């Protein structure tokens, strides 16, 4: 019997990278439990591709780092991700990408690294990044509310395992929303035809971001 397709959940890297606990679902399906009590089997993320590195010469095995306004996602692409591999040669750094993929936990000596195995990668535009941040903020806030109310079994389990500081998550969501809101406002001004002239000097060729906004600590550690 074919299972119902797993929905691609929306999580910020801040929450994703702190998810270490795996749950066995029905049959062979595994889920990653996030600190806010979401079950992940598939995720959809959007961010800036900051690194693309082939691990070893001509292995066609790639490591990616993608940043959203809250931190970084890591991803590995190899021969078992043929559709993602197909596009990897066309990806530039830095560039906005959307990734659909499955979470994977690497057990290190001292800590766990949470990574993504992309099923699909697409180069996207700012509107996609903007909407992703908006809907991921909404979902995250819903999860925070469910945590506050200890609404379901997964929320209770997340409290037990992670005991998260919910205020910290609210601040992260706020910051993410603020950073993108400004971009959206700029775009709206540009798109107003009568104001096009006075905005002419504004060069909006790429995705603007400030490195300080991202959590680069684990990169610096290496």
């Amino acid at each position: 019997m074919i299972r119902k397709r797993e929905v691609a959940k929306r999580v910020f890297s801040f929450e994703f990278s702190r998810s270490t606990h795996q749950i066995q679902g029905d049959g062979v399906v595994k889920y990653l439990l996030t600190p806010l009590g979401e079950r992940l089997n598939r995720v959809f993320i959007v961010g800036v591709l900051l690194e693309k590195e082939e691990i070893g010469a001509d292995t066609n095995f790639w490591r990616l780092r993608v940043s959203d306004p809250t931190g970084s996602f890591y991803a590995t692409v190899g021969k078992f991700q043929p559709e993602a591999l197909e596009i990897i040669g066309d990806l530039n750094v830095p560039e906005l990408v959307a990734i659909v993929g499955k979470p994977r936990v690497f057990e290190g000596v001292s800590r766990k690294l949470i990574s993504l195995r992309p099923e699909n990668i697409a180069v996207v535009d700012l509107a996609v990044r903007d909407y992703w941040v908006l809907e991921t903020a909404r979902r995250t806030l819903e999860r925070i509310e469910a945590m506050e109310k200890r609404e379901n079994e997964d929320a209770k389990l997340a409290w037990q395992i992670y005991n998260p500081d919910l205020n910290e998550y609210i601040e992260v969501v706020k910051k993410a929303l603020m950073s993108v809101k400004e971009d959206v406002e700029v775009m709206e001004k540009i798109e107003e035809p009568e104001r096009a002239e006075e905005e002419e000097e504004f060069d909006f060729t790429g995705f603007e971001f400030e490195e300080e906004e991202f959590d680069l600590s684990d990169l610096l550690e290496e």
Partner: protein
Amino acid sequence: MSRAEKLTDQILEKLKNSDVRVKREDILKRMRLLVEEFKVPESEAVKTIMNYLVKEYGVPREELFERESPLVKISEIVKPNQWISLKAKVVQLWDSNSPNVSQVGLIGDETGIIKFVIWAKAGMNEVEEGKSYLFKNVVTDSFQGRMQVNIGRTSKIVEISEEINLPPREMEIIGAIVSFQQNSGLIKRCNICKRVLSKGLCHEHGKVEGYDDLRVKAVLDDGLNSYEIILNEENIKELVGMSLEDAIRIAQENLDRNSVLSELKQRLLGRYFAVKGIRGGRYLLVRDISFHKPESKDFEELLEALV
């Protein structure tokens, strides 16, 4: 559940309101013998067993053979193994990937849409998209947790002229296309039956010349649910400005039909869309689709709620 078990339950369902008590094991044993061991055609096996029930159990003949299946609306279909009749419009035909299936797709009435399967051995004339029919004596079934109707040899399909409207309540979903499915892009269809060709072959009509068509089968995901959608030539043209003629030209210039698929993936995959349509199971019948982007007030509202 095996076919023999299903057929057994379908017979038992006919006797639901009867006074006669029949042992399920008794019918099932006979059904297995006929269908699985002797490979008797299913309809023959059913007929044989019904005759046996008339003779041995004294079931009134008309209860088994003449039983009219009630005319129902799609929203009333909630249980498997019910014999029913439906007036519905064919809203979408899909490619069947099984030689046992003649046609598969979605039918709808004003209460909903549902998947239907016409089995090849039913020997029916083919139905057409956009036309309405009376589907008589069809049986409900549950497949992967979703209801569908099966049209078999004892069913009847009669075209009707009355106008059937689809549900007035459309849903609007904002989601991302997270996956392209097989047979997307520039495809070839059979000249006779419109089925999608696989390696130049129609599994009904064999080697045919075929004609070009442009479409995308994809998965739309809003983070809460995922929906299978089909974008036709018109949808694609509206979204990315590519017509069938453009697609054929792109394929010719690149000497590769797959280049159309690559281009469509580049422009649609990972993007957000606002889709208006009707939901049936895990399928979303697209009425209207456009790219979606947020407005700054969406952010403001959310931020205000946080203060």
